[in-house]
């Protein structure tokens, strides 16, 4: 969710996250890149790291309480679940399922 922009929270998230992964289109956070009207910039691009190469485990290997909230999608016999608490720290997961490239956004 976008509430990580609260200063108290974002410092801990930034501290936990390393550089962007290799093998992807390079980010282009040019300093002269101006945001569209109305967009308030709070962090640098990449300050909250999206997930680009998601890894998955089976339901049996997952460590979530039954009461935890997840974002789920099922297509063509495949199902993916993403813990919302986990997504708090990344906001965007670039994934693929059932042959379709998808973005999980929270």
């Amino acid at each position: 969710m976008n509430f990580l922009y609260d200063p108290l929270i974002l410092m801990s998230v930034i501290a936990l996250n390393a550089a962007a992964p290799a093998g992807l289109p390079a980010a282009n956070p040019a300093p002269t890149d101006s945001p569209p009207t109305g967009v308030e910039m709070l962090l640098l691009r990449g300050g909250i790291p999206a997930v680009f190469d998601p890894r998955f485990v089976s339901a049996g290997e997952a460590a979530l309480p039954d009461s935890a909230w997840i974002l789920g999608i099922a297509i063509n016999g495949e199902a993916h679940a993403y813990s919302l608490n986990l997504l708090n720290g990344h906001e965007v997961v670039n994934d693929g399922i059932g042959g379709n490239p998808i973005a999980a956004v929270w």
Partner: protein
Amino acid sequence: MYDRTFGDKILTFEPSGGLLEAALVMRDRETDSWWAIMRGQAIGGPMDGERLRELPNAEKTTWGDWRRRHPETLVLSVDGSTHVPDNHYDNYFSSDRTFRGITPVDDRLPAKEPVFAFQLGNESYVLPHRVVAGGHLESLETTEPDGTRSGTVIFFFRERGASVFASTRAWIVPPGLITVENGEYVLDVLRGDTPSRGGIPIVRALDALPRRPDIRVLPGLDTYWYTWIAVNPETTLLP
């Protein structure tokens, strides 16, 4: 949950570091365009104006519920973890406070009223969660992009007492498929079988029906009134 395919391009998204009316703005790494989630489209860069396409079969629910329904599911793991116990936004979701103290622009509903926002034809609509609880039927007259007007019947569903996190379900249905009898919604499956009664059985029946062109899942966004209406002032408030 969005489709990342745009014509011949597959885009890779990340947070831009910025917000529009306190809601997420993303960028893509292929074109550096800016994408405003609450507006559902790109607002700058080469893809300006391109709409984000929500996937209709994504939902928020509890792990226990999801695992029962999809035992074969895979679970995202980041840096070896599938979950973290803290939810920094617990205070936000359980309070009346707007994010970062934003002043609400439209007081037809309380700022933090949870709503389901969706689009039909050219127009945006919002329906409060409390109206949807237990099921809600809405009949809308809409204008298609080519100017023709048509009538659309939509069945919405939320379980009574559901958490604000739970996804609203919605289907465009043919008129007469779902009716109300003795204060209860009834689904007529048009096969002469016993009709389904009540919200949850209707949801199960709709999910189980063989695909038909006159029943379509309607995707939308569950959010708070103040954040949606700030970015989409032309929205029609239902019911």
